[in-house]
């Protein structure tokens, strides 16, 4: 089956659902005016800040960030998430609780802002010849090492010969050096979706190259994301 990058998550498939009472209260408050609106906006901002603080704490370990920087990211993320929510509120169709829909924007803003901070604290490379170390990743049982080394050599050749310079750069950064996608996007002046598309195409090319060289995958990936 040809591998395609396609949008199967068409929002139009998920029509408006019956709104729960609490979500309706949020919508009424945010769409209203005067003091009720002011209070609702203030309540939402306080809630978004609470969520943002929780989220930056959850992710802090991966970026070696601490107190003031985390609070700064949380404040900025909640501010920008509030702006996004107010501008996009007409797009909320009630297919989840309002808060879950709103928190999604906090996650996006936290990811983006942590991506900006990545380069201040880490010196992972987007360009180094990381695939020179690839065979070391295949440390297996002694009787498998030679076989695995051959496969990683084939992968290394494919990275070098079959990928475009941009695909090489993105694959090395994201897949090998584990640079966050948002940090790569910032470095390239792009966005996460476009960077992922480059990564997706690079992976597809590399799989095809390995298949052509006689290697096949052991199992199909499962959809488990937890």
């Amino acid at each position, binding site marked *: 089956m040809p591998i395609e990058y396609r949008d199967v998550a068409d929002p139009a498939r998920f029509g408006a659902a019956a709104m729960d009472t609490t979500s309706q209260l949020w919508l009424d408050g945010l769409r209203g005016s005067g003091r009720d609106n002011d209070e609702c906006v203030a*309540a939402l901002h306080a809630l978004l800040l609470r969520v943002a603080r*929780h989220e930056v704490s959850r992710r802090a370990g991966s970026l070696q960030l601490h107190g003031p920087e985390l609070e700064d990211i949380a404040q900025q993320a909640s501010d920008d998430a509030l702006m996004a929510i107010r501008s996009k509120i007409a797009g909320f169709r009630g297919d989840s609780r309002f808060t*879950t829909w709103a928190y999604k924007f906090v996650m996006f803003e936290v990811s983006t802002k942590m991506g900006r901070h990545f380069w201040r604290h880490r010196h992972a490379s987007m360009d180094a010849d990381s695939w020179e170390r690839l065979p070391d990743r*295949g440390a297996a049982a002694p009787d498998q090492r030679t076989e695995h080394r051959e496969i990683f050599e084939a*992968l290394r050749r494919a990275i070098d010969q079959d990928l475009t310079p941009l695909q090489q750069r993105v694959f090395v950064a994201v897949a090998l050096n584990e640079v*966050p996608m948002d940090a790569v996007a910032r470095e390239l002046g792009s966005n996460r979706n476009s960077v992922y598309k480059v990564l997706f195409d690079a*992976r597809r090319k590399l*799989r095809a190259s390995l298949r052509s060289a006689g290697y096949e995958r052991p199992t199909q990936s499962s959809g488990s994301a937890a």
Partner: protein
Amino acid sequence: MKTPRDIDALLPDNTVDAGCAASFDVLHSFVEQELSGSDPADSQPGVAAHISSCRACREDYRGLRDAAALFGDAEPLPS
């Protein structure tokens, strides 16, 4: 010759992948389906496949799942 699982992890082979933007559009409903006890991969397989392949979106998904579970019932009372 079979490839080792390290390469399997480097080169996940999802035949259906919704991508970052389309997954973000429906991530809230995906999370709520999971929290309600049903498997969102049944109705949104492209999102499930994407989350398994994209580390950035997987982090957003995990964060949103946590936030919805912890703070999902908040009401718009004056702060």
